[in-house]
């Protein structure tokens, strides 16, 4: 697979500094609404909870539990804005002191079914969107059927390759290389459990060739039978469908975008870090890594904060920009622009702060048909045509041209000389098609 190489300015230094631990914020928000629907609150206002206490539970036991990332008193349940622009009910927690991170007895033994259930209860939250929660996603067919009663496609597919994704998702991001650089020993600890769960014949750790982790880490991973591969980090090679194709040569069927369909499972190295830590000393996966960057002032900071920390205290600690024009959670190419500084971060992420003269503005001029977007599309779509079809309301034609295959990497908009809002047009088209399906 050949990716278009664009001069994406590497805004990050090669090896990142170790992440700082921030004091607990004044308030922590634990959203009950998320990609899996709404969880039922398990706490009442005024109640005091321990770190790691269950505050929300889904009706479906296969979905991860929501836990308090710090000890504190429950202030109430109210509506918050999540970083992806949705409204969500959230448990508001006032942390009491800077307590130790939440932990419980680590699961003993390596019986896959018990382990899978224990991991679900531990409540892992992930940065990337996946069709299924971790750990159901990485279970072998037998474990998936026994632990989660998942027997249909794609769960009847055995996992051939398990990829631990240590490639940073976007230019300027260094969350994953920080994990490999400073917290890698936990990743080693996770390998045995990942192998037991997935029964994968091959476990691959992918890292950025330009910022390789220490030789000791690679050696101990190789001793565990992990195939360590350094890839050139050309965006979007860290995105799941592209990564799977780069590593295994298999195309992930779209629009399902589930690598399990071709016998591959992908987990983020930050999840592997949390998993290794949980298995080592029982620390629950309630601490996340947040990178704050401002390219204008050359600032790159990494923090370890409790999950559910709102943006405001993290930005204040980083002192990124006193009056930012734009705050983007999720990075420059994939992220969401924030309107609420109280939006809580529940998984490791990259916060980019832009000052007024850095903000990119779109232009609503017509497509000039230059075709620059065509060679950069990793899915080999014709973004110029999709953009036009969505703009003129011809959604069925757009669908016939594989609109749903778009992974919204944003490269078409990045290179567009006419500065058209390509991703917005494509999302608009996808949304309209969904609405039409609902009506019919």
């Amino acid at each position: 697979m050949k990716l278009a190489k664009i001069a994406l300015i590497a805004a990050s230094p090669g090896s990142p500094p170790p992440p700082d631990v921030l004091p607990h914020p004044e308030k922590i928000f634990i959203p009950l609404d998320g990609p899996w629907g709404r969880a039922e609150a398990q706490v009442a206002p005024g109640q005091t909870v321990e770190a790691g206490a269950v505050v929300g539970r889904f009706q479906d036991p296969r979905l991860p539990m929501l836990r308090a990332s710090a000890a504190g008193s429950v202030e109430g349940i109210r509506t918050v804005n999540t970083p992806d622009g949705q409204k969500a009910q959230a448990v508001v927690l006032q942390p009491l002191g800077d307590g130790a991170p939440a932990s419980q007895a680590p699961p003993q033994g390596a019986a896959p079914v018990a382990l899978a259930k224990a991991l679900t209860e531990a409540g892992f939250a992930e940065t990337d969107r996946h069709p299924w929660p971790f750990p159901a996603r990485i279970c072998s067919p037998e474990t998936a059927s026994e632990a989660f009663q998942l027997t249909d496609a794609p769960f009847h597919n055995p996992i051939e390759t398990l990829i631990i994704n240590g490639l940073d998702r976007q230019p300027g991001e260094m969350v994953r290389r920080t994990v490999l650089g400073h917290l890698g020993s936990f990743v080693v600890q996770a390998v045995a459990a990942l192998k037991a769960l997935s029964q994968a014949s091959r476990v691959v750790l992918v890292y950025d060739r330009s910022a390789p982790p220490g030789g000791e880490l690679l050696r101990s991973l190789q001793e565990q039978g992990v195939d360590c591969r350094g890839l050139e980090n050309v965006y979007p090679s860290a995105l799941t469908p592209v990564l799977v194709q780069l590593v295994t040569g298999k195309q992930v069927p779209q629009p399902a975008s589930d690598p399990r369909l071709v016998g591959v499972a992908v987990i983020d190295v930050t999840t592997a870090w949390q998993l290794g830590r949980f298995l080592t000393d029982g620390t629950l996966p309630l601490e996340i890594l947040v990178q704050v960057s401002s390219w204008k002032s050359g600032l790159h900071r990494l923090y370890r904060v409790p999950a559910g920390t709102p943006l405001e205290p993290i930005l204040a600690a980083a002192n990124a920009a006193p009056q930012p024009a734009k705050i983007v959670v999720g990075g420059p190419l994939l992220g969401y622009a924030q309107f609420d500084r109280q939006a809580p971060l529940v998984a490791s992420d990259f916060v980019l702060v832009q000052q007024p003269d850095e903000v990119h503005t779109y232009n609503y001029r017509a497509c000039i048909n230059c075709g620059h977007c065509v060679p950069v599309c990793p899915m080999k779509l014709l973004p110029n045509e999709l953009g036009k079809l969505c703009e003129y309301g011809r959604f069925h034609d757009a669908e016939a041209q594989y609109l749903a295959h778009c992974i919204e990497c944003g490269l078409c908009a990045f290179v567009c000389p006419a500065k058209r809002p390509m991703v917005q047009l494509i999302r608009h088209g996808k949304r309209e098609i969904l609405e039409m399906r609902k009506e019919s």
Partner: protein
Amino acid sequence: MKRPGLIVSPSPHWHSGRTVQGMMVDFAIALLPCLLAGWYYFGWNAVRVALLCVVSAVVAEAVWQKALKRPVTVSDGSAVVAGLLLGLILSPEVPGWICVLGSVTAILVGRQLFGGFGSNPFSCVLVGYGFIFISYPHILQSFPMPHPAFGLEPGGYIEYPPMDILKMDGIQVIRDIPWTDLFLGNVPGTAGTVSVLAVLLGGIYLIARRVIRWPIPVFCLAGAWIFAAVCHLIDPSLYASPTFHVLAGWVFLSAFFLATEPGTCPVTFPGMVLYGLGCGCLIIIIRTWGTYMEGAPFAVLLMNGITPLLDRIRPRVIGRVQESA
């Protein structure tokens, strides 16, 4: 204190910095060697024609957009490039009103009627050129002899552009034209088309800056050369040598500048290959069997018309699954 609000927009929140203006600046820079070549061989007349075309193209676009109460897009520079390109394919001896007529037709009929830059199906420069060429062929076909400003001796082998010689005097005469003269541009012709060297410099710059993509020029040149070579192999006494065909006249300028106008050429790789080959072959076909001396303008216009068809050749989308029942 109320803090200023935050800007919200869809992703991506970052842009490569590539703009239409930037592309047009690159085009203009790439055309500078041609303009210099025009000045070098034909003096200030060539520059006068080019400037007149640029000014009238810009004025035509501005007046039209003002009159229609549409946003005036003169600042993006597309009219400047269109005017410059037209000025370079006109003979340096044409009167001023021809320049104005050509530019106004190119901008209004060739581009604005379709909705502006990038929306025109046919190369607007060639629409303007085609109009004045068909209307006033005798004016457009009078070419000055080259008089290099310094260095070279004037190329004195022929009195007409090489393609006219081929058509009128036959294949015997053109064998005497040194290829270095064709390559450097020391022959009668127009500012933009005589010097292969100048076009090549500009073209390589455009490809290096990724303003145009390489398959169109490369396959256009290859198509022209291969087709001419096949003809030449069949009967060398009847058909000129392929290298002569490629070096003489409009082939290089068409390949790099005329066939690659945004909006008029295909965007997928197989489309671009076929389009380039088609342009190249048609140039030779029209030159050899057509009534016109130079086949390039109409070859490119014809291939522009096929572009929508070529755009239907799509790359295979990644992740497409065959539905199994």
